[in-house]
């Protein structure tokens, strides 16, 4: 993602500052799930961030409206971290969260290596969908991403073909 105005300088982030009434809890939970799905970084209580681009800005805009509709308060800010280290910490935490998700996919794919072709292909389909979901919230791809992709694609290959490749 080409984000920084100049190399090494912090890029733009879109921030959402918000407060949602504790009750009723349903809109609160719905909104929290949406934020989680987007892979936001939690800066502090009621303040989350995503690297700014047209898509992240739009998603957070609509979530802000949804919070207002639920009787809460919300505002969208475009901001630049004051120090490179602040951005690096955010990016590291976000990459670590995605790395854990990719590792889970890799483990699941690897554990099924001995199953028959049909079972492996069916698992590969499910894990490909899971990988797509993770990709969408992966703003700072960790090395685990390639490993997970390779593990899932290996699962989709018939066993015989794999043996030919390794011999």
């Amino acid at each position, binding site marked *: 993602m080409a984000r920084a105005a100049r190399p090494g300088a912090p890029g733009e982030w879109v921030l959402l500052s918000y407060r949602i009434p504790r009750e009723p809890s349903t809109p609160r939970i719905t909104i929290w799930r949406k934020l989680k799905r987007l892979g936001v970084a939690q800066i502090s209580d009621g303040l989350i961030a995503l690297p700014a681009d047209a898509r992240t800005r739009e998603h957070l*805009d609509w979530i802000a409206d949804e919070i*207002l*509709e639920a009787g809460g308060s919300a505002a969208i800010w475009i901001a630049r971290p004051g120090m490179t280290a602040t951005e690096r910490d955010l990016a590291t935490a976000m990459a670590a969260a995605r790395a854990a998700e990719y590792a889970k996919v890799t483990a699941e794919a690897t554990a099924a290596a001995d199953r028959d072709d049909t079972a492996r292909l069916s698992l590969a389909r499910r894990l490909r969908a899971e990988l797509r979901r993770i990709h969408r919230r992966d703003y700072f791809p960790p090395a685990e991403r390639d490993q997970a992709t390779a593990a899932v694609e290996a699962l989709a290959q018939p066993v015989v073909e794999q043996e030919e490749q390794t011999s």
Partner: protein
Amino acid sequence: MKWATRAAIHIDRAACAWLIRRHVDPDAEFVFVTDPAQVPADATPFDMRGVELGHHQGECSFETILRHYDLDDPVLWRIAQIIHEADLDDERYDAPEAPGLDVTLRGLSMICTDEQTLHHTGPIFDGLALSEIRAR
């Protein structure tokens, strides 16, 4: 009538403009703004924060416009599911067409002005509607 929406249009706004022109106002004229404060007084805003024809209760603006104008054609509601998934991607509906449509619109927005994007997406949505009719 004049209609206003946010500039740098993507899937929901392009689909809404098509829907408005085909089913609400054949003479629709579209204005693109970068801030809600720039919406002309005589224009109806859509797919913008805080307006009636926007996202509500987890639905995208295309769905809101269908409800608002009592458009109950099942073909339009099927297209609404595709637009919903391409825009919100929340897996509420099964719409395998959505990722393809999303990337098509993203690509168009990289090389076209908003007016050009509307020009190109008109036949895309007309074709989508026809293929949905034929699939029935």
